């Protein structure tokens, strides 16, 4: 009996350790980019504008700039922010899951690491969505599908120009609904 | 079975043993990180912990050497050939057949002949090897001033330091195994905590 209980608890510990170790990598995804930081950002921005489904750019954040203003340095990191009211509206309407607004807008992070290569960091929207009921699960599933398109690059096309600032309202590229940069 | 108890390990000796054990285990953990075997605390922290531990161990050793010299306990480490063969036979064969231990510790001779040789080896070889190479490792920046720049290379100093570490680790594993070979698995360990060894 002691052995059974002992084994049970040992199993619990093992699972705990595994979960602790891998949970982070399940929630988020990191892929290597074949391009430099600026070009990766520009191509993702272009992809977002071409994805449809109401997606529009809502910002380009550069947290490194704040560090520089404080007199420090970090390797470049830029966050491409995108938004689609088609997906945000249902979640924002539901009191039970409105807190998920902290995940908005949808972000794709582009950064350089010490190996000199550029990486793309994204949230695993599909998996995360499943934790908050069927409605969110479905919406986030669509977001995940679109997100995958954001990082599909066609290297044969020339590098587009990086779009700075908050272009969502200005360009209104993919659907006027996004104007205002949700 | 009427167990007789003798007081083998004095208070300082026990303190020395356990604090040394702790320090050495920590040094092994941090040392192998500095070596590059894994990362745990991060290189920078591993180095600074390792250095602090090293100085702590040096301090402990200074006290221990003083204690051994003033109490005459150093004689416990004089090697002897008495019963060595019987001992080796016991650990390789007899122990698995439940034969009695051929050595009976006393207050004056608390270490069996194999222990004497092993501990003396640690004290006279592994220890000094680690101290010496560790010293040069730590004071790499002063080699030029000391004039040893020409015939020392950091690579070899590090290599022998690591060799010492592996020997210490080997000793530790063997030592841990043998502590469980008393008449009960924890008998020796208890003795090292309380100082009292049960002798049957």
């Amino acid at each position: 009996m002691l052995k059974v209980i002992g084994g049970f608890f040992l199993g619990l510990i093992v699972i705990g350790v595994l979960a602790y170790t891998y949970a982070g990598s399940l929630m988020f995804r990191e892929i290597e980019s074949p391009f430099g930081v600026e070009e990766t950002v520009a191509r993702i921005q272009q992809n977002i504008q071409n994805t449809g489904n109401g997606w529009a750019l809502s910002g380009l954040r550069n947290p490194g700039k704040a560090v520089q203003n404080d007199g420090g340095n970090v390797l470049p990191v830029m966050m491409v922010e995108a938004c689609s009211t088609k997906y945000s509206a249902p979640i924002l309407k539901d009191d039970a899951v409105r807190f998920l607004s902290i995940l908005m807008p949808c972000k794709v992070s582009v950064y350089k690491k010490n190996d000199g290569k550029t990486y793309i960091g994204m949230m695993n929207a599909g998996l995360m969505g499943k934790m908050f009921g069927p409605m969110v699960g479905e919406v986030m599933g669509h977001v995940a599908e679109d997100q995958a398109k954001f990082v599909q690059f066609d290297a044969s096309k020339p590098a587009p120009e990086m779009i700075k600032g908050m272009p969502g309202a200005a360009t209104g590229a993919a659907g006027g609904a996004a104007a205002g940069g949700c | 079975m009427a167990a007789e108890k003798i007081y083998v390990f004095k208070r300082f000796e026990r303190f020395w043993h356990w604090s040394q054990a702790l320090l050495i285990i920590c040094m092994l953990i941090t040392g192998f990180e500095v070596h590059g075997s894994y990362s745990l605390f991060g290189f920078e922290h591993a180095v600074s912990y390792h250095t602090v531990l090293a100085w702590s161990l040096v301090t402990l050793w200074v006290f221990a050497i003083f204690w051994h010299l003033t109490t005459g306990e150093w004689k416990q480490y004089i090697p002897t050939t008495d019963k060595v063969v019987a001992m080796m036979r016991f650990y390789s064969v007899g122990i698995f057949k439940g034969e009695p231990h051929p050595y009976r510790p006393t207050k004056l001779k608390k270490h069996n002949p194999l222990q004497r040789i092993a501990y003396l080896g640690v004290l006279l070889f592994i220890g000094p090897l680690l101290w010496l190479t560790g010293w040069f490792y730590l004071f790499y920046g002063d080699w030029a001033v000391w004039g040893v720049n020409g015939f020392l290379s950091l690579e070899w100093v590090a290599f022998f330091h690591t060799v010492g570490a592996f020997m210490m680790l080997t000793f530790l594993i063997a030592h841990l195994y043998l502590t469980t070979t008393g008449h009960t698995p924890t008998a020796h360990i208890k003795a090292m905590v309380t100082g009292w060894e049960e002798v049957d």
Partner: protein
Amino acid sequence: MPARPKIILSVAAITAMLTALVAFALPAKPEAAPAPQAVATPKKQSDSTADHSKFKELQKNFKTGPEVTEACLICHTEAAKQVQHTKHWTWESKDPKTGQVRGKKNIINNYCTAVLSNEKDCMACHAGYGWKDSSFDFSVQKNVDCLVCHDNTGTYRKLPGDAGHPVYKRREFPPKSGKFVEAVDLKKAAQSIGMPSRTNCGACHFFGGGANGAKHGDMDSSLQHPGKYLDVHMNEKGLNFFCTECHATKSHEVSGSRYNTSAAMTGPAHIRGKADASPAACQSCHGDKPHPQKDALLNQHTDKLACQTCHIPEFARNDIGTEMSWDWSKATIMGPDGKRMVRKDSAGRRAFDSQKGAWVWESHVIPEYRWFNGTSTYKVIGDKIDPTRTVQLSVVGGGPNDPESRIWPTKVHRGKQPYDVENNYLTVQHTGGEDATALWHNYDWQKAIGTGMKAANLPYSGKFAFVETELTWPITHMVAPKEDALSCAQCHNKNGRLKDIQGVYMPARDGKHSSKKEG
């Protein structure tokens, strides 16, 4: 996700007692130093005893640069002679160790390649007037350009095409760009004379290679008004050093040339007091044991590492970036309409130009590290090459067993440029200008190389091809705040910054193969 350390950590939790002891031994974190208060000295007050605007020699409406110089020389009788001994004038430098004669005049690089036959353009950055071809007389004193370094109005401009003369007449530049460059008010410039500011040095050194930041990577216009993050010494709100603070100058000889780098200075700080030591080296102010006693371990690194290696973790730490490669083989490719085509990269930097080829730029560049003893050997015009392999246009000297060598951060600029297939040397090409053989005007390599090689007095077989080249330069500017220096594990790591550096044992990097061969 680094899984292994976490597992190890979990296991280690069992030995909590041990870790607790180690944690106890943790040395106290050094107290955060109070941030230096911003000293409001953006502009340096002149403490000169002479106000040049009051000199009667300068109350003149100068028509040309040489006229101004003649006025300067009335008082500063030795100035021109001094300048004429410097690289800023000769564009030539002889290596005291190897005897090789280098300098901008003689080398071939993989940016604009070579000066010969292109003097009219290149000499916009010559401290002189009128060097338009090999007939230039280097002994004429009035042709020394005092203003380019000493004008303090910030309005003095020299443009390509004028062989070093300033802009005398308002003109459109670049041609057909709609932008105009005003004529320089030479009288005002002459009366503003002062010590060289960052603007003076930067006018050439920030824009080398034909674009902001293109060439050096550790020098670009961001150093005009740098923040602390970019350069602790030049920080406008802090020390606010001008270039001349480190590049201390004597008799117009500016110290600290890349051609003879002081790569491994030893001994304590002497702050300019030691005549034979390079004032521009970090050690001249910081000594070779610059870290406080609590960080004594760091001082042990100075026998192998240059200061720059840890303290310039990346260069081009801004949006300007620097050029990483220049592919000349793409030049003369015209747009679909048969006309010159120009394209920019995602960050708005030049990426392609039918005149010049294709470029790749990068910001926040992680340096490549090399052993370096301060002596580089350059490819000079006419040097033989082996076209079957990448041609090293500069070979940084030294190695692990040389006590004069340190591991340095470098910028490696990669390129593709033409060479003479039969004679096996890199070609000189006539690129700039409006004449019948200029590459940027006619898009004809054969004509451009023909003219270039004639100017270089070298036979040309008539056959050329493109060869890959590398130019390696040490990095020394844009020193980051100490908090941003490389941390231990960035090198003490199997895949760290120095993973390719041979001949030095590094704990944690070399652990698994501790008995492998010594370099």
